[in-house]
């Protein structure tokens, strides 16, 4: 029986002790003497969030298929255990072996959202690894970052030895081979880092210096080593039907956010919404083939015993063989009493028919994401969803028995006017009116329930809006109040509920997203002043963060409200995500002209991703 890192007394004191015991079904156990490389894979948030993440399951499965590697999992200890570990000097451990993370060869940290940045420091700190890469020695693990936030790694580059830019399936073998060579030859850490920098997709921040203009913008990047490449090209899986995917995902004991089999049907998105970072980063769209998906769906259900399967992708309706896949799943799942969950479907006759088959209509709600309240602004953001389509979809749904609708909007989008904001209320009202026109009184079971939610727009790197200025907190809140007021002025206001996201945290996320190297010291300062779990509103301390900015002499507005010149060098320009800066600039101009750009299946826009020679770029176009 495994010995746990924590004593019974501690485990009995903390909330949900099963977060820390490992030993779940399909967790991989190896003997440490029989592997050459030990890899600790960390999601820097609480177990239930981290365990719900598909990417880690893919990499975990892949690394453990390598005979010479044992990959284990690490999550952020919750605040209760965090305090005990600090008080009693207990080092952070990996779940499988329960061994200290500091003994590992690698600590991989996935960066899925900016608000986890202080948790990176929490993990390093509890593990006993120096927070700054420059202070680490041969005894410390190589700390490597991956995931979408690494497309602008600069705000956190001081804390990492390496970043892996792009999809994880492709270069880990090469990196681990290099690591083994480094250990066998007894070379120094600097040797390893310099050689790692030559592996495609690997970025070694310590090999560069960022120089600034007087106004604080980036002047240039200076290479500190001949061996460092000028541009880091993202890594990408060419054939997503011939690659790693877990047949036996780990099954948590406790209920986690995503407590189901997740079938990733495709990567990327053809749509090109101008606010969306994922839509650009994962270009081109690559579909997994139907037979691959059928095989994995069955294997994962049989190996986990999960009672639900969910399709995962950015826009599932665009998967070309969706009807065939859904028919297959409905047949297999009804036999096995498995639920099917279908997120991100466009609401139309097909999807309503499918949802009618797989969900309890009375209990489920329908989701639309118009993102903007007016057609004009939807054209600005290239959200190809028209009011007609929304109202038709709603009408069909109401006829089918649905009575609950969720609507998602953004406030603070570029070129937004008061009219656009009022449009949110008007569209919500029209949907409610559609219900009352469609469903006769005698068939109604109470009111229609419309929930409109707004988040605040945050410009992200590698989107056409990377040049846009972001609103201040006060502006955000004014917009939310205007939305609320407009909704109360609608005829059907009693059928509409309105929620909005916190404003101050959106401002901080914006700073992190488009930050440069000057942000590192602020994150470190904020962490030292007690910030951690910033993604959890109950632990987010805005005043402490603002104090940290002040103490470091860094002006938050520089990163958010400032308008960026079109020829400005961005901190992330040295990364090539496949989509060219020219294309993004063209799209930024088209946004200003309120011009919609056709999706990748209709017409190629020459974004640059065609050079990968795969996916949708190889398809014949409709137009």
């Amino acid at each position, binding site marked *: *029986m*495994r010995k*746990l890192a924590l004593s*019974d*007394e501690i*485990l*009995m*004191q903390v909330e949900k*002790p*099963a977060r820390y*015991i*490992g*030993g*779940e*079904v399909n967790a991989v156990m190896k003997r440490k003497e029989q592997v050459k490389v030990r890899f600790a894979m960390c999601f820097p948030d609480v177990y239930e969030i981290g365990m719900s993440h598909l990417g880690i399951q893919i990499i975990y499965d892949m690394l453990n298929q390598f005979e010479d590697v044992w990959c284990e999992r690490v999550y952020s200890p919750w605040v209760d255990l965090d305090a005990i570990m600090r008080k009693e000097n207990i080092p952070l451990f990996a779940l499988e072996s329960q061994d200290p993370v500091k003994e590992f060869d690698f600590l991989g940290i996935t960066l899925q959202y900016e608000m986890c940045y202080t948790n990176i420091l929490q993990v390093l700190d509890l593990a006993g690894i120096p927070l700054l890469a420059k202070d680490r020695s041969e005894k410390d693990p190589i700390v490597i970052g991956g995931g979408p936030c690494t497309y602008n790694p600069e705000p956190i580059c001081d804390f990492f030895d390496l970043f892996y830019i792009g999809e994880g399936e492709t270069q880990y073998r090469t990196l681990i081979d290099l690591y083994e060579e480094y250990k066998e030859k007894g070379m120094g850490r600097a040797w390893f880092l310099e050689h790692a920098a030559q592996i495609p997709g690997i970025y070694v921040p310590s090999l560069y210096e960022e120089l600034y203009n007087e106004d604080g913008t980036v002047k240039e990047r200076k290479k500190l080593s001949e061996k460092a490449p000028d541009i880091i090209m993202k890594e990408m899986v060419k054939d997503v039907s011939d690659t790693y995917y877990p047949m036996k995902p780990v*099954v948590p*004991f*406790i*209920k986690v956010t995503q407590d189901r089999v997740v079938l990733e049907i495709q990567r990327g998105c053809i749509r090109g919404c101008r606010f969306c970072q994922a839509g650009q980063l994962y270009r081109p769209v690559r579909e997994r083939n139907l037979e691959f998906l059928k095989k994995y769906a069955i294997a994962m*259900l*049989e*190996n*986990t*015993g*999960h*009672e639900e399967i969910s399709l995962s992708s950015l826009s599932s309706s665009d998967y070309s063989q969706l009807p065939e896949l859904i028919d297959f799943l409905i047949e297999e799942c009804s036999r*096995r*009493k498995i*639920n099917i969950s279908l997120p991100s479907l466009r609401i139309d006759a097909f999807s309503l028919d499918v949802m009618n088959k797989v969900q*309890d209509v009375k209990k489920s709600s329908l989701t639309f994401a118009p993102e903007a309240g007016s057609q004009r602004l939807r054209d600005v953001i290239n959200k190809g969803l028209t009011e007609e389509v929304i109202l038709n979809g709603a009408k069909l749904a109401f006829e089918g028995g649905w009575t609950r609708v969720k609507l998602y909007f953004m406030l603070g989008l570029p070129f937004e006017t008061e009219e656009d904001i009022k449009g949110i209320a008007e569209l919500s009202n029209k949907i409610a009116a559609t219900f009352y026109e469609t469903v006769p009184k005698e068939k109604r079971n109470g009111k229609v329930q419309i929930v409109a939610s707004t988040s605040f727009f945050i410009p992200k790197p590698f989107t056409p809006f990377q040049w846009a200025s972001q609103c201040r907190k006060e502006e955000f809140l004014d917009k939310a109040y205007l939305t609320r007021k407009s909704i109360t002025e609608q005829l059907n206001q009693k059928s509409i509920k309105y929620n909005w996201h916190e404003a101050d945290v959106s401002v901080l996320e914006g700073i992190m997203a488009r930050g440069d190297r000057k942000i590192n010291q602020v994150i470190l300062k904020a962490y030292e002043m007690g910030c951690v779990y910033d993604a959890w509103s109950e632990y987010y301390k805005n005043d402490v963060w603002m104090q940290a900015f002040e103490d470091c002499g860094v002006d938050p507005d520089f990163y958010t409200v400032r308008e960026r010149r079109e020829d400005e060098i961005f901190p992330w320009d040295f990364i090539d995500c496949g989509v060219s800066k020219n294309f993004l600039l063209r799209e930024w101009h088209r946004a200003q002209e309120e011009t919609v750009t056709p999706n990748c299946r209709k017409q190629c826009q020459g974004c640059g991703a065609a050079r990968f020679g795969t996916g949708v770029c190889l398809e014949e176009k409709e137009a």
Partner: protein
Amino acid sequence: MKVRIKFSKEGPVKFIGHLDIMRYFQKAIRRADIDIAYSMGFNPHQIMSFASPLSVGHESSGEYFDIELNSITDVEDIKNRLNAVMTEGIKILKVAILDDGEGNAMASVAAADYLVRFSDKLMLPADWKEKLIAYYEQEHIFVTKQTKKSEKEIDLKEGIYKLQIRDDGIFMQLDAGSGSNVKPGFVLEHFFGTIGVELPEFPLRVRRLETYRRTKKGKLMPLIS
């Protein structure tokens, strides 16, 4: 038909709570491809009933649950198939087919055996053993029990069927019926209170050894006998 399953829970998995153990077995039954019956309705669920929830932190070698099956191979096959998909620390010990009309596991529970050890950190007075025996040998042990709504005085002795001091710990057989359940920790905390020893937090290591039903003649029998 109904099948009763006995399992043990030892080691790190003792930190998994009762609801999560239920979810664990729901998934395990699907992994083992056992032909379990489902309830009707839009969200069918497996027909499954657990005997008695085990507190987080307690180990057990006498846990039980019942399931309803559509078809059955044989009990050995069910046991082997389930054991093939168990995780470290949970083991299927016995499987038995229930006679028609036999009450479900939860309703049947009458008593349970426990073995309690102290945590290493606990400092006890030298004569605690004698005092514990004397405590147990009293005719009545009146205690005030806090219920959800009020306080009431009960005779704890009625719920303590056996108490022995063994080499490996304190053995107790306690009432485990619904409504009259006595927890081993409650007994020992009360005892140490009476001799003026204040226990630290989490002083006890509890292991449930067996769970019993009462036969028509009043005899205690393990849930699978």
